[in-house]
């Protein structure tokens, strides 16, 4: 187990290095970052200033040296300054992190509350209306693009019915009801696909468990139906959905980029897209570094939950 962990952590670090390297090289290919430092209408940028900047950013050194200079800073927790606002990358990123975490959490709660019970229901009442409803829900979740769910939500609940706001995060207003209302549409858009995943997994593993011998034994002994379902079957059927939870959390990162673009949600995903469009490479590398860390940690956690939840699985 310890050996396996160590191996995984080494590969995690390799992933991180690969991610930063790719981003670093790509962002340096995008054109001369010096021109970005020249302020709008900056005709007056003198030769000396350019030289000083080149020195400061180490742009006169080879690319690989620039990368290691940057990496050295990262290890010390220094991601440099953003180009546009000239602020510390770390502060900017942590400012926006809260909004994304909030969205990911509510999305996860939505996915769990909808997906797992519906999955159990459609397994227990196989072939009933509930089963078809659950499967339809899952089908749509897997086939609808995240941005289209968001747009349909805006169309129905913001434009036609005028019940919910079309976007943005009202931070200065009280949580109830303004912030809560603003959360609903992004949450559903983000959570629908994971809810579908949970539903399908819960349903198939629940069906499998309900078919096993010990369930038949419990039923034969005269255990009540509810007790069999929740106490005997559900606990074992839960293994599959739990093990994908970490992967679903990773999926939220990807989803948040789109959802935040649709709903003008001021989080990390939007920050990333903005930084790409502004050619703000210190900020971008910082964001992608954060994403990559979360990815690596997430897949590590996913692997470990397998053995935690299901002791039958052993690692070499």
């Amino acid at each position, binding site marked *: 187990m310890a050996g396996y962990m160590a191996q995984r952590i080494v*590969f995690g670090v390799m992933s991180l290095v690969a991610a930063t390297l790719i981003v670093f090289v790509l962002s340096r*290919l995008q054109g001369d970052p010096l021109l970005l430092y020249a302020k709008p209408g900056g005709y007056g940028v003198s030769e000396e200033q350019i030289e000083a900047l080149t020195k400061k950013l180490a742009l006169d050194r080879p690319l690989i040296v620039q990368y290691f200079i940057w990496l050295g800073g990262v290890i010390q927790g220094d991601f440099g300054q953003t180009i546009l606002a000239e602020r510390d990358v770390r502060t900017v990123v942590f400012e926006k992190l809260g909004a994304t975490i909030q969205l990911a959490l509510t999305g996860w709660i939505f996915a769990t509350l909808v997906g797992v019970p519906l999955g159990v229901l459609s397994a227990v009442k196989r072939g009933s209306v509930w089963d078809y409803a659950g499967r339809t829900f899952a089908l749509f979740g897997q086939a609808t693009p995240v*941005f289209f769910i968001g747009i349909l939500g805006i169309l129905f609940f913001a434009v036609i019915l005028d019940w919910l706001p079309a976007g943005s995060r009202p931070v200065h207003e009280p949580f109830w009801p303004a912030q809560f209302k603003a959360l609903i549409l992004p949450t559903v858009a983000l959570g629908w696909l994971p809810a579908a995943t949970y539903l399908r997994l819960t349903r198939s593993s629940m069906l499998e468990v309900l078919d096993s011998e010990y369930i038949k034994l419990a039923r034969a002994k005269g255990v009540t139906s509810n007790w069999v379902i929740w106490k005997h079957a559900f606990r074992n059927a839960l293994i599959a959905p739990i093990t994908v939870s970490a992967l679903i959390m990773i999926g939220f990162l990807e989803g948040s*980029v789109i959802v935040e673009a649709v709903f003008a949600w001021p989080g990390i995903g939007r920050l990333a897209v903005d930084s*790409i469009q502004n050619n703000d490479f210190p900020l971008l590398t910082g964001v992608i570094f954060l994403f990559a860390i979360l990815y690596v940690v997430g897949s590590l956690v996913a692997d470990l939950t397998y053995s935690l939840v299901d002791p039958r699985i052993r690692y070499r």
Partner: protein
Amino acid sequence: MARSVAIEDAATAERNVQYQRPTLRQQTWYVLRRWPVLPLFVLAVFILMSIFANLIAPQEPWRQNLRGRAAPPFWDTQFYDDNPRLEQRYILGGDHVGRDILSRLIHGTRISLIIATLSLAGGVIVGTTLGLMAGYFGGWLDELISRAVDVWNALPFLLIAILAAITFGQSVTNVVVLLALAAWGGVVRNVRAEVLSLRTREYVDSSRVSGASTARILLRHMLPGVINTVVVLATLRVGGLILAEASLSFLGAGVPSSSVTWGVMVSEGRQFLNTAWWIAVFPGVAILLVVMSINFVGDWLRDRFDPRLRQL
């Protein structure tokens, strides 16, 4: 003697049981449940649309017409009565510069399907080759390939794709390459696992003993064994690729916005939701229909040819 009589009796009795021909309704229901007829039909329609886009599309997808700006779909006869000088009806409405949405949808099918097919083919070919090699040769090659897949899968794909699209410029080729890069990882894993078990079969040993070359074993004895898995995996992945392409286009990092794609159409229509919902909704529905049909077919293929992939 008595026994044979008994047998004959049973036979006549069976013959005498009235065979009831299933009604048309029962037959239809049987076919519909067993074959993905409807999804295949939808897919066929979309594929035909993409091939014959030039013939089917009622208007040119790029032609703008200020009179038809945000023209509603055909059922709003009031609008068309009020504007008699509009030469043609917009069946699914017109967008913000008066281009025909139906024509754009039809032409958009082409790009979406081409990108999905090419990137899938690329990803599957690379993935299968690497998976075959990793599984068959084992050792350091296996380690290298498997670890490369692990590392690649741990990268935030969408962000890197956006960044790459902006760095290398937006073009169909770039999107295809990016999506192929997104597709190969999963294929490698499954093919490798399959080959690991195939490799130990006796028929492989005997072909090696009889002097078959490595290439021959790989191509003639391994590849046919994994082709089922590959086909099923590929079908299950297409939907995801179409969604990814649409998402990239939606974020403005896909194919250049001068060409018609569904993702770009939805993203353009987003600003006009409160005045002309049809601009964003119809292309979205098209994505939904295609992806859902493909998923249906994929599920069906999996259940039929490779039930072990159930968890996917």
